[in-house]
């Protein structure tokens, strides 16, 4: 046919149709899911939240751009993953920091943790968490100064205070309840996020709204968050009490620290978690166990970050050994 000569036919391998999911869509959706918590961080911690998080995002995206440009690689800043790393790092930092700390953290996250390993898909560790771990080791003092939350634009010089987990660790449950008045108020404030802590971790309710969106879109499945939270809950109940086994308060542990942020948004990072669903339950349970080990017996009041990073090491091992449910698997004959 003459037409054929004019427009050569395209030959490619099957399948010839494609679903609509792309890396860009997924990454920007996760960014969107973090938006409620980001807004709450500005509400509680004022312009500083915007400053710290914004600095992280700009540095992250810029670092990726400069690195890829310099090495003549394809520029991938539009895929939303560098933006997400910056956003997550910002949400994991305390409110009052000198400008160079977020910048260094983002640089470490993007360049050392992600790009030097080959870029998106090849990194072993969650970039934002390595960024944060680097900062915690480098500036241990600055990274553990927490501001008291203040409603928007009220009192720009917020007092420094301890986080609920810090109080729990140093002074015990009684003191923590005393600070918040009563137990019910403690729960409510933890849920709303009206407490000291990292910028984006405090408002549990805002994080859960975002998490519900991700679960609905199936960008995240229940496996990791559920096993992570369930393990923390059970271990807190079993070993977290002052009066022996099974006297602990799991609710405080579930609502405090970076647990909700970590369980739904960081442990579930595709690249650094396991991809077989059964393995994800092990991964999540491991994160929960290490978190509680650090919270109850370790030197830090909070253990979510180290727990996820340690489990990142195990992810390939789990993926290798936990197989998918093969159709028509031949059961071994006894």
């Amino acid at each position, binding site marked *: *046919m003459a*037409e*054929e000569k004019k*427009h*050569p*036919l*395209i*030959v*490619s*391998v*099957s*399948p*010839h*149709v*494609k*679903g609509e*999911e*792309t*890396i860009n*869509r*997924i990454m920007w959706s996760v960014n969107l899911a973090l938006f409620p918590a980001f807004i709450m961080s500005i509400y509680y911690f004022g312009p500083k939240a915007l400053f710290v998080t914004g600095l992280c995002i700009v540095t992250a995206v810029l670092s990726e751009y400069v690195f890829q440009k310099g090495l003549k690689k394809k520029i991938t800043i539009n895929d939303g993953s560098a933006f997400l790393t910056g956003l997550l790092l910002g949400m994991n930092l305390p409110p009052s920091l000198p400008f160079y700390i977020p910048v260094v953290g983002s640089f470490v996250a993007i360049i050392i943790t992600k790009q030097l390993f*080959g*870029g*998106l*898909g*090849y990194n072993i560790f969650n970039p934002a968490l390595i960024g944060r771990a680097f900062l915690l080791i480098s500036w241990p003092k600055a990274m553990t100064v927490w501001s008291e939350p203040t409603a928007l634009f009220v009192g720009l010089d917020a007092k420094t205070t301890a986080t609920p987990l810090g109080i729990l660790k140093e002074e015990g449950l009684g003191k923590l309840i005393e600070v918040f008045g009563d137990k019910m108020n403690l729960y409510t404030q933890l849920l709303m996020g009206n407490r000291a802590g990292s910028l984006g971790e405090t408002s549990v309710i805002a994080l859960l709204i975002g998490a519900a969106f991700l679960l609905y879109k199936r960008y995240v*499945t229940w496996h990791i968050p559920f096993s992570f939270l369930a393990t923390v809950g059970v271990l807190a109940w079993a070993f977290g009490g002052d009066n022996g086994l099974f006297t602990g308060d799991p609710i405080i542990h579930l609502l405090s620290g970076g647990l909700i942020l970590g369980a739904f948004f960081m442990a579930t990072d*595709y*690249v650094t*978690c396991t*991809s*077989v*669903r059964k393995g994800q339950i092990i991964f999540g349970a491991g994160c929960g166990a290490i978190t509680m080990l650090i919270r109850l017996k370790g030197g830090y009041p909070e253990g979510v970050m180290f727990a996820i990073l340690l489990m990142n090491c195990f992810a390939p091992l789990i*993926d290798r050994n936990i*197989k*998918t*449910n*093969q*159709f*028509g*698997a*031949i059961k071994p004959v006894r």
Partner: protein
Amino acid sequence: MIKAATFKRGVHPEYQKELTSDKPITISSLPSKVVIPLSQHTGAPAKLEANIGDEVKKGQLIGSSTGFVSATVHASISGKVVAIADFPHPSGRMIPSIVIEGDGKDECVSLKENTDYMNLSVDEIRAIIKDAGIVGLGGAAFPTSVKLSPPKEKSIDTVILNGAECEPYLTADHRLMVERPQEIVEGLKIIMKTLGVNRGYIGIEENKPDAIEAMKKAVSSEESIEVCALEVKYPQGAEKMLIKAIKGREVPSKGLPMDVGVVVQNVGTALAIYEAVRFGKPLIERVLTVTGKGVREPRNMMVRIGTLISELAAQCGGFVDGAVKVIVGGPMMGFAQWSLDVPVVKGTSGILVFTEDEYVSSEEYFACIRCGSCIDVCPMGLNPSMLSILSEKGRYEEAKEYNLFDCFECGSCAYVCPSSRPIVQFIRLAKSLVKP
């Protein structure tokens, strides 16, 4: 309402069947020339039984079966053999083929009718089916006589007719079920008799309510045959998925449907079996769908085997401007063509013409981000992510530990992959480089 039967996982591509689902099957005009490959089936190629210059009639044997797993081929028009050489085949390979130039008379060899066909012996039926060159018309083109001759140690208790037609765009089986349900049922009864089975099912996806209704009506007086509505999900029409949905049985890894007592045949094959046994008609034509936004008048057609795609395209009003891709088969598992001078073969269920809008570029892909989407959709319960990574790294042997050879290349994994990875192609590469 009872939930429609199905299997675990799978995908929901856009079906696009409305382009042709209401179009009755039309008979394509007599081709001026046909190219009939000697290998249109799984198994040994047929042995040439014609010479250049021979005058042949429609239905005349021109290629004989060369073994148990092989199939005969017949002239699909009357005319003169003008060439015997390697010609392009829809699979992309060059295959020895017989070219017949038509004389326009469409003269047929005399065919042996059997009005009392249900009283033929089982061996007679098998011989008729083998001589008629019937192969599975769903796409894989496995010789039907082989499926109807299971080894003695396999006891078969169920026959399933596959009317799922889960590939998007295709509506040929759908139209056959709407228009010729009675003959399909007769075909099924012949298959059941041959296998000594008294349980038959016809599985149809729920998006074809008219076909379900027509088939239900056709089996209303048959106590041993049941029509099963299936959930609309790809790849519902894969043999193993169909058996799981209807009978709840899982064909073991590396096994065949007969290992769980089931034989599956496509509805079009059942019709071809009926026509062969009742009228003595060899497999010289089939129904297919010519569709896609790139073709002016999409339709379902009864087409002679060996008709060139270019000729069919002309009959369907030609291509629109901006038609960029021609696929033989469905969009999930079909083959893209580089030339329109390829013939319709026994396994050709459709011809899709895609415009730039429908075409998806597969040139650029990214690293696996291990999101697990492919694992969530793989009907065989494999880990396509791991298989694609191992293949990409050249670790083909290791891929076998992840059940590489269970993959039947349905394409669900690549369909959902957010990194646009050619997962199926990586798997094909690994399969081709290691032994099972």
